[in-house]
């Protein structure tokens, strides 16, 4: 780890080297490990130490960005000069106002020493636990165990300096037989919360129960979507339309619908960069503190997240959701939550007359972003439900579904939620029981 003091020194040196009218320095330092297993053995096992430095230079309304991962003085001087030279060579961007001014940044405790010092041997022991559970049932295990420390620092010539370390641990497992598979995953800031035995048992149980799957006809069915599947849908919803630029450009499902009901009343979605039950970082890549933003409240479209560029366009304050410059896609939620309900998955199952149980989705992509229509496949444990009981495992199906419509028919929501990684940061969601979900195709397994 570089630590706050060393990162501050680097940013101060860079700011001193820069001759630009305004300068921003972003440091991202990673100490990351990942142990990957397949066919019940560790086949890939990697480590990475890297520090990226990104300099944004502003002269008038011209903006240039340069980056390096060389911490030598010559390289720091060079990257500051490059950024300014790049800025000076381009025409004015009239939409650019200014880099943000300093604001107090709250402290968030997202660093766990146990995660930072987790060893390859400890990861191997956890993997061995999963593989043993699979082998005992004649199954094959695969998956990955991540343990990583990331340090973020942002400084600018207006006086911003913000620093935050964050740890991440995650174990995923896919357990397979010749005709079935099961999935389980757990993510946390604290590696001591990763229970390899529990993950292994969950994936093994799914693989055993999904043997000998039967084909069912595509069609509209009620579904129970486990948290893994819900997290994927929320990740895409966030990507497609919960940032201000997508609204300003008219490509968001939120555009012109603020104050209107867009999902069921039981759906509330918010972003909270300070919530340690997610993967919090207290400031964004401009050093602006993250605000809690109520995105959809009791089904009503409320707000989207802003960076300084999109906020300036509307005369608003940034909510602290900038991505690293240069960024033409706009700000994004980074610690997303879908509100919990009061049900259990068992109660959802008992309540369902006919429908499907979906563990997770695979290879999801937007078909019509404005209408929030996504397509993708089910994977690793799909079951047919009749009269409140799981009747049989099914072969996998393709869905093509409007997500907002699905959220409008959410009948039950679990009290328990689960943390996953989204495109940017964390996402914590419950499982959902949904009235209508469109399956438009089927595959052979």
């Amino acid at each position, binding site marked *: 780890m570089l630590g706050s003091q060393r990162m501050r020194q680097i940013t101060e040196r860079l700011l001193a080297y820069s001759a630009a009218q305004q300068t921003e320095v972003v440091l991202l330092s990673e100490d990351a490990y990942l142990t990957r297993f397949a066919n019940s*053995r560790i086949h890939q096992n990697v480590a990475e130490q890297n520090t990226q430095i990104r300099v944004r230079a502003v002269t008038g309304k011209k903006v240039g960005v340069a980056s390096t991962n060389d911490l030598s003085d010559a390289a720091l001087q060079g990257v500051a000069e490059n950024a300014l030279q790049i800025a000076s060579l381009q025409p004015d961007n009239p939409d650019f106002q200014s880099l943000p001014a300093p604001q107090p940044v709250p402290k968030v405790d997202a660093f766990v020493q146990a995660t930072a010092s987790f060893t390859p041997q400890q990861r191997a022991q956890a993997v*061995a636990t999963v593989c043993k559970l699979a082998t005992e049932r004649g199954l094959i295990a695969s998956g990955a165990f991540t343990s990583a420390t990331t340090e973020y620092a942002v400084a600018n010539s207006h006086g911003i300096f913000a620093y935050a370390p964050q740890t991440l641990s995650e174990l995923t497992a896919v357990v397979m037989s010749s005709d079935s598979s099961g999935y389980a995953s757990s993510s946390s800031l604290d590696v001591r919360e990763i229970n390899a035995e529990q993950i292994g048992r969950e994936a093994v149980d799914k693989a055993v129960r999904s043997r000998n799957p039967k084909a069912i006809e595509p069609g509209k069915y009620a579904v129970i979507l486990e948290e893994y599947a819900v997290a994927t849908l929320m990740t895409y919803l966030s990507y497609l339309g919960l940032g201000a630029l997508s609204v300003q450009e008219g490509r968001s499902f939120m555009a012109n619908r603020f104050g209107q009901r867009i999902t069921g009343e039981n759906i509330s979605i918010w972003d909270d960069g300070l919530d340690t039950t997610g993967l919090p970082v207290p400031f964004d890549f401009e050093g602006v503190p993250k605000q809690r933003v109520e995105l959809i409240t009791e089904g009503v479209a409320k707000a989207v997240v802003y960076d300084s560029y999109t906020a300036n366009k509307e005369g608003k304050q940034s909510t602290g959701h900038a991505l690293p410059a240069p960024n033409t896609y706009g700000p994004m939620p980074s610690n997303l939550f879908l509100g919990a309900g009061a049900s259990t998955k068992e109660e959802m199952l008992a309540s369902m007359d006919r429908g499907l149980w979906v563990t997770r989705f*695979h290879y999801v992509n937007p078909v019509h972003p404005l209408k929030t229509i996504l397509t993708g496949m089910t994977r690793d444990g799909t079951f047919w439900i009749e009269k409140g009981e799981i009747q049989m495992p099914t072969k996998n199906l393709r869905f093509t579904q409007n997500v907002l419509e699905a959220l409008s028919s959410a009948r039950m929501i679990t009290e328990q939620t689960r943390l996953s990684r989204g495109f940017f940061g964390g996402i914590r969601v419950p499982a959902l029981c949904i009235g209508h979900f469109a399956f438009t195709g089927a595959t052979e397994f």
Partner: protein
Amino acid sequence: MKDLADRALNAAQLQGASYADARIIRRKTQSIVVKNGHVEALAQDDDQGFGVRVVVNGAWGFASSSVLTLGEATQVATRAADIARASSLVKTHDVSLGSPEVHVARYETPFEVDPFSVPLEDKIALLLAADAEMRRVKGIAITESNMEFVQVEEVFASTEGSLIEQKLVESGSGIEATAVSEGEVQTRAFPNSFGRQQGKAGYEFVRDSKLEENGQRIADEAVSLLTAPQCPSGITTLILDSTQLALQVHESCGHPIELDRVMGEEASFAGTSFLTQDKLGSFRYGSPIVNIYADATIPGALGTFGYDDEGVPAQRTAIIKNGVFSGYLTSRETASQLGARSNGTMRADGWNRIPLIRMTNINLEPGTWEFDDLIADTDDGIYMAVNKSWSIDDKRLNFQFGTQLAYEIKKGKLGAMLRNATYTGITPEFWASCDAICSDRHWRIWGLPNCGKGEPAQAAHVAHGAAPARFRNVRVGIA
């Protein structure tokens, strides 16, 4: 850089490595984005570091660092060996790489104009001109045009005695126009979606790309799509343009032939493959006119290089011959399990990633048809062009694609424009329904700079050659 590699390999051997390789990489990337008439992003990224891959106790370990010093080389090699020892706690067999690969060589991408020597002002001017053409069209809400240039200098060294230096250069550009109306958004891109068309080439690749000449056309198409009729649902004849067919090859041929997927090594993330080893040499993949090959030696193509990241020379390999599956993409380790030698497809996304089996240039051989004759020969169907959405299951069987542009085909003629066109199918059934492929006059290689695979995530730069082709009895218009 060679000193650092030597130090890392020596340290690895002292730590008990039976095999080690080191890759030292410096990568420079310049990217420019013009959006709505302004330069929205302009960046130069310099990245350097090295990675050491070792086999200790018959198991793999890998460590990497951005600090290029001899002391760090020793530490990183030691860390890789420690990680390998941990891997050996959960192993079923010892790693075997087959016969040694020993090459001492240098390879450079051939190009006419070094893209980093061209003034930024010239590049910006080209993009602003294309952007202005798109913005002339009433109803266009967002315009975006971009360029990207990459230079990678790499040293590969192994304990078997290889020492390979490569300098790879890429250039790419593209434009995109988006029209927005109440409840509808339509985007058209040129020359391809995924941001741009990219090749292993110099600035000439961008200079000749005709962005400005096509700006107004694609903007007109985007606006027209807002009010075009919805693509109908049903079973029909489908003709795909070469860009969409390139992605079809990528998803339904390129990924399933990766032998690491076939052997289950990507099971937990990207998935496995329907193309099990018993199918090699006998499985009917497509109709007899379907011939596909992998070729990492094609000048200018994005998936071209001199040596892969295991130090194996770039090669051409038959994948599908006359419709029959005939070859995988392999690594040294996977090939040795088939009793074969690697066909040189292991590539890593930088110094901090291990090499994985990646597509190179996976190409559908051209047929004999002229495009106009193919349309004239089609009584009823839909022509679809330029990808918009894509999805395929984890064994690469059930796929669904959407395209930006589509036209109905009626009585041998292209008719009305259609919006939101989609089609779906099962891989071998789809390729079996291919009854016509256009000639080499219509064949083009498309660079795809965003092929995702692996954990931690890696993006590979690959390419696919294709000419328009016809498929019968395809399900379209999935609502």
